[in-house]
């Protein structure tokens, strides 16, 4: 983070030998030097020295460069051409600025921080910079103060931090400043970190009496305009330099052509442009990525370095009154130029503030079931699509793309066509790839079974060109619908259980399936409760060896020597069948076998008395040596659907 240092000086004057280090070069006007180096001057005095029409030099060091957002009677001053990029753009040093007007400073609460950031030296000059999330103060002199101007009401307030003294109550509060204060007399660079909390940045909330400013500046101000906003008129005053083209204070979808023009028809010189990709800011609803600063524990917004472009010189624009150039990639565009009166102005595209760039946001794709899930059942396969389109009149220009979600292990079949416009929707095709059920090792994970479709959308213009693209979103089956999908795709004859029939397995609703849910049936449970009550031999619930099984699980168990699996019509798949262990387990002696048979007989008879059906005693002809129902267990069931 680099701050913006301003030193006000007359155009063309030489540097003072008393200026601080080169890291903060200063060019100033001799006629204000005396005042400027007066250790007793305030910021108010300093700014009062600015003359309308005078040319001064701004020495930006990057960062957020907005000094003020003002409403002046004579002329608009818009201080920050790149206000949307408070942490990401490095401004070149040596920008001359012109005082455009003077007037009453009027802050806007929508601006996060209002004014410059100043360092006042006890025996030297005062340098004002722009506060930034991380600001480096170089060469803080003994006794030097740090001023943090901020907006309050219609005035400008400045909080001062005295060198070597930590901010104390009542101001700034911890949310205002949480970093170290450079010690008095320190010659080393120090960083000041300012917390940016939601809704309040570098100034306290209005009307909060806790925050008492140390100095308050009100009244008429002379003010230095650093940059002009270009095409955005303020109070009817045209900008000095304009740039036309797509508005760039929000992410752009494609490269676009911009035109930079001097408002007065003057030729341009030294034209440069650069852009930040993607364009984003903390004011327009596109938050910057916040990163943790280890030294302070504060989260501060940062543009990644990779998102900044290099500065590009537009040599061919030299001497032209208007120059067009094309941004080669999406992003916020920033440009600057020099006009003959010596002023170099930066500008960004303004566009028509009342005609926002068509945008596509807030993409949603939701299935009809709880949580937006779905199945391929006709009544549950309709996916609703919706996108937020600005302006909403362009809703019919939304084109949808639906495909398999590539991050899982299922090849979900997308629909062939999706109607354009928003809202829209599609049906998930009923025929899906059932080979997925053979493609994993039992029991598998959800990503190997659940259907999921990735959805994206694009907004097109009259010519079919894409003007905005959405992020992608994925509509995905939840666990319950993934389970139900097995019944659907595998055509289990008894049909598809409803979502509400699924429960979390417990001692009674035992699951031998592949999921964290099981099916329960009230009728079955009631009969089971009667059986439990009638059964006095042991704790029947503790003898359950087979409960719920999902259909695919049954496949596995139908395989020879792989387990106790029923057919595809098994009531185990509906929570309407249980297997009970018989005792003694695995009898090997004749008495034990007799006891086991008695146990089987007694339990089977008891189950039949309460209305359960049981497997026959007849041996399975496929395995005639095996006694009825395996002897090892008693299978009970009801027809519950």
């Amino acid at each position, binding site marked *: 983070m680099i701050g913006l240092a301003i030193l006000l000086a007359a155009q063309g004057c030489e540097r003072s030998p008393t200026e601080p280090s080169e890291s903060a070069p200063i060019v100033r006007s001799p006629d204000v030097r005396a005042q400027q180096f007066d250790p007793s001057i305030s910021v108010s005095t300093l700014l009062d020295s600015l003359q309308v029409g005078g040319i001064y030099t701004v020495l930006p060091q990057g960062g957020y460069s907005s000094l003020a957002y003002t409403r002046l009677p004579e002329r608009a001053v818009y201080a920050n051409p790149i206000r949307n990029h408070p942490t990401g753009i490095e401004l070149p040093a040596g920008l001359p600025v012109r005082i455009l007007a003077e007037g009453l400073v009027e802050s806007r609460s929508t601006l996060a921080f209002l004014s410059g950031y100043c360092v006042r030296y006890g025996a030297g000059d005062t340098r004002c910079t722009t506060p930034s999330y991380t600001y480096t103060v170089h060469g803080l002199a003994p006794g030097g103060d740090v001023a943090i101007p901020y907006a309050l009401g219609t005035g400008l307030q400045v909080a001062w931090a005295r060198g070597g003294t930590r901010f104390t109550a009542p101001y700034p509060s911890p949310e205002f400043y949480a970093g170290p204060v450079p010690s008095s007399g320190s010659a080393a660079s120090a960083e000041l970190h300012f917390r940016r909390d939601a809704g309040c940045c570098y100034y306290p909330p209005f009307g909060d009496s806790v925050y008492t400013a140390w100095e308050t500046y009100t009244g008429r101000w002379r003010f230095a305009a650093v940059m002009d906003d270009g095409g955005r008129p303020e109070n009817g005053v045209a900008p000095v330099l304009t740039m036309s083209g797509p508005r760039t204070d929000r992410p752009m979808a494609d490269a676009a052509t911009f035109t930079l023009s001097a408002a007065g028809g003057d030729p341009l010189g030294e034209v440069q442009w650069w852009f930040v990709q993607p364009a984003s800011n903390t004011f327009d609803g596109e938050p910057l990525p916040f990163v943790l600063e280890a030294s302070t524990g504060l989260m501060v917004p940062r543009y990644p370095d990779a998102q900044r472009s290099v500065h590009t010189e537009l040599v061919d624009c030299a001497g032209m009154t208007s120059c067009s150039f094309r941004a080669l990639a999406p992003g916020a565009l920033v440009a600057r130029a020099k006009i003959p009166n010596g002023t170099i102005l930066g500008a960004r595209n303004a566009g028509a503030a009342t005609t926002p760039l068509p945008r596509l946001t807030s993409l949603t794709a939701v299935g009809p079931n709880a949580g937006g899930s779905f199945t391929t059942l006709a009544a549950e396969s309709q996916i609703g699509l919706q996108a937020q389109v600005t302006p909403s009149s362009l809703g019919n220009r939304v084109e949808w793309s639906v495909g398999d979600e590539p991050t899982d292990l299922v090849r979900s079949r997308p629909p062939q066509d999706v109607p354009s416009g928003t809202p829209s929707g599609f049906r998930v095709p009923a025929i899906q790839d059932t080979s997925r059920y053979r493609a994993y090792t039992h029991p598998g994970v959800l990503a190997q079974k659940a259907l999921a479709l990735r959805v994206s959308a694009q907004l097109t213009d009259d010519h079919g060109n894409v003007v905005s693209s959405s992020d992608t979103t994925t509509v995905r089956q939840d666990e319950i619908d993934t389970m139900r999908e097995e019944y659907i795709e595998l055509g289990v*004859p008894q049909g598809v259980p409803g979502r509400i029939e699924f429960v979390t397995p417990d001692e009674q609703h035992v699951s031998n399936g592949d999921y964290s849910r099981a099916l329960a049936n009230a009728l079955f449970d009631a009969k089971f409760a009667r059986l439990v009550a009638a059964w006095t031999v042991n704790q029947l619930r503790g003898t359950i060896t087979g409960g719920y099984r999902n259909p695919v699980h049954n496949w596995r*168990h139908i*395989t020879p020597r792989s387990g106790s699996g029923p057919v595809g019509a098994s009531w185990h798949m509906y929570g309407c069948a249980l297997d009970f262990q018989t005792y003694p387990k695995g009898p090997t002696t004749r008495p034990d076998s007799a006891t086991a048979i008695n146990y089987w007989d*007694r339990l089977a008879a008891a189950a*039949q*008395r309460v209305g359960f*059906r049981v497997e026959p005693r007849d041996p399975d002809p496929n*395995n005639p040596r095996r006694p009825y129902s395996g002897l090892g267990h008693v*299978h009970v069931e009801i027809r519950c659907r």
Partner: protein
Amino acid sequence: MPLVTLPHALRPRAAYVFCRALSIVIGVMLSAPAVRAQSIDSLTAALGSSALLVRASAVESLNRLPVSALPSATRDALIALLEREATGTQPVDPEATADDDEAWGEYIIGLAEVVQQLGDSRALRGLCLLGIQTSRSAQEYVASFGAQAIAPLREAWSTKPTSRPSVITTLALVAKSADSTTRLVVLQTLLAPDDTFPIAIADAAIAGNLFGLVPFLDSLARAPDLSPIAQGALQEAADTLRPQLTSIPAPQLLAEYEGLLAAICHNASGALQGYCESSENGIENSAKHLLASSAQHVQQGFTNQARQELEQVVARTVNAVSAGTLTAWQGIVIITGLQQVIARL
């Protein structure tokens, strides 16, 4: 139909069988919606498939249709299929063999149910041989045929030992609602076996509401050679029926045992006939006569005489058991029952 055909010659047997079975299952399952959409004729044809899972799926699909929608050909096929499964004449499906596989057992449950719902007496044989093993409902259905069910139940008893517990219970259900002649026959059959199926007789007593067997059940429950599981079942049945036994007046209780004795003696011949009906040395002391006389004395209030006659029956019964004329169970039924009556006189 099968979705995958794997080159089994290149695979180990187990892997091949796994894949083959899985492919059939997938095929069957995937075809199920189509099966539902198929005509009943197609479903009927599927009943003849050699693949167990195909038959099972067809059975379940047919089970979901109203019985009235099933044409005679389908009914015939279902009845025949159950009978084939019951008699072991249905070809074995080698693809569905797993040590603990429940496929066949669950399929039989569904098959028995759909056949039962047909309400066709031609299904009696299959239901008796196999269906009654799956549910009390099937047993009650068979029992509702009364005397008509006796022959197939006897066939099941004699040809399929695994069916005997279910046959016993079903016979008790027949006895519960049949006419007196049929009841005699049924009770005779019910009391004929030896002590092979103690749990079945306990279940039958409850199913047939045979409260006269309570003393018998109590006695069996104390038999030291029975497993605790069996003892518990017998005691449970006795306890279930005991309230009826204790609330019934002595004359009616005696009549209950007259009925049981009549069942044991029904169409008796040889030594059993002697026990039941023959006099000794010109004295009318057959079991039936003594019981009848005892009942008459009870009615007349001559309880001492009645008691003496009953004790004579007990003594004769003990001898008959010792001589092998009566089975142990038959003997215990009469002896313990009459002792119960004597105690109440």
